[in-house]
């Protein structure tokens, strides 16, 4: 973008996201994309300000990139993906001259440290333990089930297994048996293990500036890893005050002054809210796009405002709508995984196509006919978008998609 406001910050976005680039193209901030070199050609062809950088593990080069960005006049770095969260922390600790930011980002990257820190902050969490090898997993599975007074031969209650530093559903497995344990690849260790809580799982997104929540969204999962919609149903929105209190605890426990967080919670059968995990980056399931559909504001732009030290109070107030009240209906999406082992073409089911809530999809024809076996939650093949007035209808509709074949 050539016409930007010189009174606002110069923003570095860490990671390659066309949606984020699109948001910046329409925004009033000078920006730079810092992403791996494979994106360079596209960026040059489309005249997108670009700096190539490979986000390997943090190393001595992190100071080099921080210094480079500082010399360019960058005010702040914004992480777009899990892998870039600690890079943003390292860079911002230099740019903003605040060494604690690096430590904070490390906490937000390591699921086990994160959990302990939350516990220290007085936040309810389930039973959890770290696993370094498969024996740890088997032991944890047995002990959890012993606690539940299960006898040998009873069906186990599952446990959750999450690789330490992978985003969201990547590397998240549900373990019920010793066989499940055997299927975990070596590279997923070390990992965090948690007991399974029966209940209602949901996520929230909070835009934070000056230590305060500026916009809070609750995303209702219809089924984790498959479908989500915003704003949440009236039943879940009834808990908004409670959610806000919990997030304030998180802000305090992690000492978050600015930015954007995406925590996940459980409401157990006893109506107690348990903290699952929190990420310091946009959610993976296109919740930002859904928010734009119902509220009309661009969530990436909102996120950048939260990071930008030059953002003003008036700007923030003018930007965000009133949650729920200002929403035009509910928008949801469903991630499609092929259900057959062999597929030949994309075929949108008639039930989907003919439903008035269906809006569009970003699925494409299959690249290969054999479907890789899905071990962890893994990646969907594309999203199908819905929009409508009634949350219950939308929830049932999203649920119904799980039984349909989009690839035949």
């Amino acid at each position, binding site marked *: 973008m050539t016409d930007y406001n010189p009174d606002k910050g110069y923003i570095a976005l860490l990671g390659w996201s066309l949606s984020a680039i699109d948001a910046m*193209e329409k925004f009033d901030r000078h920006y730079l994309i810092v992403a791996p070199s494979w994106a360079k050609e596209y960026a040059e062809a*489309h005249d997108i300000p670009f700096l190539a950088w490979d986000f390997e593990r943090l190393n001595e080069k992190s100071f080099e990139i921080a210094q480079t960005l500082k010399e360019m006049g960058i005010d702040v770095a914004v992480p777009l993906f899990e892998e870039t969260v600690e890079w943003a922390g390292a860079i911002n600790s230099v740019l903003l001259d605040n060494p604690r930011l690096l430590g904070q980002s490390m906490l937000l990257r390591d699921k086990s440290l994160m959990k302990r820190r939350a516990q220290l902050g007085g936040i309810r969490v389930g039973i959890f333990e770290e696993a370094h090898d498969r024996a740890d997993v088997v032991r944890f599975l047995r002990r959890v089930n012993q606690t539940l007074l299960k006898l040998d031969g009873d069906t186990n209650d599952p446990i959750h297994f999450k690789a330490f530093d992978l985003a969201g559903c990547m590397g998240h497995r549900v373990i019920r048996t010793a066989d499940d344990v055997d299927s975990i690849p070596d590279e997923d260790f070390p990992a965090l293990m948690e007991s399974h809580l029966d209940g209602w799982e949901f996520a929230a997104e909070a835009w934070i500036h000056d230590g305060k929540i500026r916009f809070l969204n609750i995303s209702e999962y219809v089924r984790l890893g498959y479908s989500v919609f915003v704003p949440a149903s009236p039943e879940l929105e009834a808990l908004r005050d409670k959610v806000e209190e919990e997030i304030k605890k998180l802000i305090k426990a992690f000492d978050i002054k600015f930015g954007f967080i995406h925590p996940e919670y459980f409401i157990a059968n006893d109506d107690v809210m348990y903290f699952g995990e929190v990420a310091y980056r946009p959610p993976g399931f296109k919740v930002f796009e859904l928010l734009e559909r119902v509220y009309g504001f661009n969530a990436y732009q909102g996120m950048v405002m939260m990071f930008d030290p030059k953002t003003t109070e008036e700007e923030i107030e003018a930007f965000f709508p009133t949650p729920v009240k200002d929403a035009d209906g509910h928008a949801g999406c469903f991630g499609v995984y092929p259900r057959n082992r062999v597929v030949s073409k994309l075929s949108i089911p008639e039930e989907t196509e003919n439903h008035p809530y269906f809006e*569009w999809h970003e699925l494409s024809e299959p690249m290969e006919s054999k479907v890789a076996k899905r071990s962890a939650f893994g990646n969907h093949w594309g999203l199908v978008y819905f929009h409508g007035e009634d949350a219950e209808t939308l929830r049932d509709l999203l649920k119904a998609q799980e039984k349909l074949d989009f690839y035949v």
Partner: protein
Amino acid sequence: MSEANPTQPESGADPVLLKRLDAAIGRLRNTSDKLKMRQQQPAIEQAERLLTSPGGVHACLARIVSMDEAGIFVGTDWNHPARLKPVLVRHTLESGDATALVLETLSELRFLAIAGGQYAHAEVSSEEAHHFLAQVLGLNLERLFGSQTEVARFQDPAWTEALAQLFRCLAEEIGYGRIFDAVISEIWRILAQRPIQTDRLKAMVAQLSLWSRESSNEQSPSGWGADRLVSALFGPTNECREDPGADAYEAKLSTLDEKALAQEAAGMARAMHDTGLVSAYHAVLLRHLVAFRTDLVPDCLGLSSTGRENYNSFAELTHALVDKAIHVETAQSIYGLSLLLERGILHLPPTAPALWRQIQLKLSPESAQRLIDSFGNTPEPEARLLAGVISILGQPLGVGQGNNPTCQAARAIAMWSYTDPDYLLQLVAWAARDNEIRMSFEGESISSGNLNAGLAKSGLVDVDPVSAILVPHLDRVYMEMGRLCAGREGDPHRWINPEMHGWWVGRQFNIVVDVPTGKLTDIEGFVQRFYAAFHPDHNGGQPLIHPSPAGIAVTDSAARFVGWHAIAIVRVSRDPSGEVRVYFFNPNNDSGQDWGDGIKVSTSGNGEFYGESSVPIADFTSRLYIFHSDPLEQTASQPVSSDEVEKVRSKIASSWGQDRL
């Protein structure tokens, strides 16, 4: 009307589809310019759903301004309406590519909104939009009337209906009276080139006739020349004025007295030579005369003294040709027969015996099937092919490549018919009977029978019977010759053209493009050599002896490079105003092109014979990139002035040569 009014019912369009499209337009509008492409396809898909559903065309028209402003055309060929050409619309509508089809339809709706004053567009005025749509209508008239073309038959019925709806909208906006005239002048313009394939034109004339009957009580269209077209086809003479049907006309003929029959013969000939269209009644009459009154055959063919002399010398052959080839379905070949006799080529010793062979020729099953696929069973494929042969020999420059990438083959057929009909007849016999032709390339024999398909992968679309039989073979041989030239430096036509077309192709190969770099090379020398070979003031006034294959860089009306194209130079001489023009054969279906920079290819009115295109020699040279010549033939000539060379160079530089200097 940038936003559709939600309270207004939209002629039955599905509200769910409307909501989806509006949401898609919203997403597209919200996408930054650099990334428009990400949201274009979803919006196009939603537009397609709506267009192909009831009421969809009107609903899209109501949204066309917001679609355009949201950027649905950005980065596509349709982004600048001022650069669009009516003549290309048909091909896109027939392409079957869903995205192109949607964008083309929306583009027409945009013109409609501009024409109707609902949309003020910076590039195109309301009048220009009107004019554009009138031309589109004229060129796609059958869409309006829903007549089934070959192409439409393969199309999704929902799309056929959507396009019919679109064209009804266009016709209502433009007004029937206006299109009527545009259609008529369009038909005359194409007829002025005397094409062999007239099916499409005849369908248009048939529609015109229905139309003028239907609208006779509303507004009377001015319709200059409409009567002549309609009557040439459906009632060219006294006795068939009421379009009585072939059987009734035939029955009537035997009751006519001598004078009336002579009038019929003269009337038929007059209508045929006036328009280039032949009525089915003409076939009935000609068969009758051959059977009962051969003395009237020359009148019925409209022959001059040359033609009469040829007919008298070869009456038996002529009667045999009529008997086998001329039927109601193949009546158009009567025009070819007339011109064949006028050309006098029957006096070339091999021609008459070769035609006797053609009359007797049995077709291979593959060849017969190919003709049946294109033309149906009646008359039998042998007769259909013979009729095609008659047309080609009578109208060498009437052959066209149809909707196929086979300009090389079409050009070859035209040149052989023009200069070497005996050889053409031999090739047709081989291809039709043996399903194989042989040609030699630098001593090596190439058989078309062993080769894979060339440029035309599927069946040929919209071509005459001879092309239908011969082009697949020529195409394969051409590709094979190209393969044998692989690895040689420079343009392969240097070797292919003389080997493929004949000994008479000049052995000096001239090219103005350096093939490895694509840059222009020695423009001055190229121009000097071309003028020395062809320009009467620079070659000692020697008229061109054989048609000469040449390559041109085709440019569009904005003078942008479109592609390389094969043509044949037929004559170079002074037009009635004294200007030296190059008269050439263009195998595409419509030679009247606008090459940009003020260069408009003329097809009539500048001394052209039927089928020829022409431009002034400097303009022609500025689009030429390959020609053949024979330096030994040339006398010492005076060099071309530097002014003239500069004129050519600047026209190259401002068009296709822009990035090649």
